[in-house]
């Protein structure tokens, strides 16, 4: 019987590139425990990895002594993931990458992380830092939803 009625896991990684894979594995394992299909686990893995990379790079400026905190919470039919950093965060909606502009150099080659997060999970919210000085991104992935189609 898959676990689908509560329980939360927290994982804290140093702000160093490479460690996003550790948080990604933790999240993947949690999603498998809940009975998510393999393709949805892959969606979650990329979303969590990109959210952690942003927290490591933009939130914590690669300061390995500052942790990125990842809270994974099981709710009926869904897994919520919050990725916390010590930066100011952001509330801007991600822009859709324009490959034609990237090819001409009008747009940077990179800058696809937030777009991918939004495209791969069922719900996403960027929450800038309040008075506490902690910002986070909150993702939700649902059990009953099919994987996104190719756009």
């Amino acid at each position, binding site marked *: 019987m898959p676990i689908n009625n509560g329980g939360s896991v927290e994982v804290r990684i140093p702000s160093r*590139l*490479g460690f*996003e*894979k550790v948080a990604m*594995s933790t999240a993947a394992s949690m999603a498998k425990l809940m009975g998510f299909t393999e*393709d949805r686990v*892959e*969606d979650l893995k*990329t979303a969590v*990895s*990109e959210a952690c*990379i942003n927290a490591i790079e933009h939130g914590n400026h690669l300061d390995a002594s500052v942790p990125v905190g990842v809270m994974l919470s099981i709710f009926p039919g869904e897994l919520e993931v919050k990725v916390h950093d010590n930066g100011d965060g952001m509330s801007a909606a991600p822009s859709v*990458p*324009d*490959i*034609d502009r*990237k*090819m001409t*150099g009008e747009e*940077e*080659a*990179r*800058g*696809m*992380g937030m*777009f*991918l997060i939004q*495209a*791969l999970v069922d719900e996403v919210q960027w929450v800038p830092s309040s008075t506490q000085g902690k910002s986070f991104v909150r993702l939700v992935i649902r059990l009953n939803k099919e*994987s*996104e189609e*190719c*756009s």
Partner: protein
Amino acid sequence: MQLTSKVSQQQLATATGKPLTALRFTGDISSTSRDAVVGSYVALSTSAVKQILLDFKGVEYLNSSGIALVIEVLMAANKAAQIVAISGLTPHFTKVFTMVGITRYATLYPDEAAALASL
């Protein structure tokens, strides 16, 4: 899941006998993979190499910084009028590459054999 990216290069011929240079990646393709991805492309002769196959069959981890390096290769290849094909992506990364529009500049094939048969 390795932190290192590795690349190997091989000269192949398509079903119609055209030469094709395969770059096969293994390990991780991320922000630390510039040498493996862009470097191995730059090392090819722009005049001699007309068709390139980027194979991701052996890749265990791929993120958006790694995909950005692939886009840099596509940019340079596009300027040099080279054809780039991509093979060996998992269904998930086939979806991701399609989402970011890479399919407008490179054709995706399930594996090397399929690429060689079609090019």
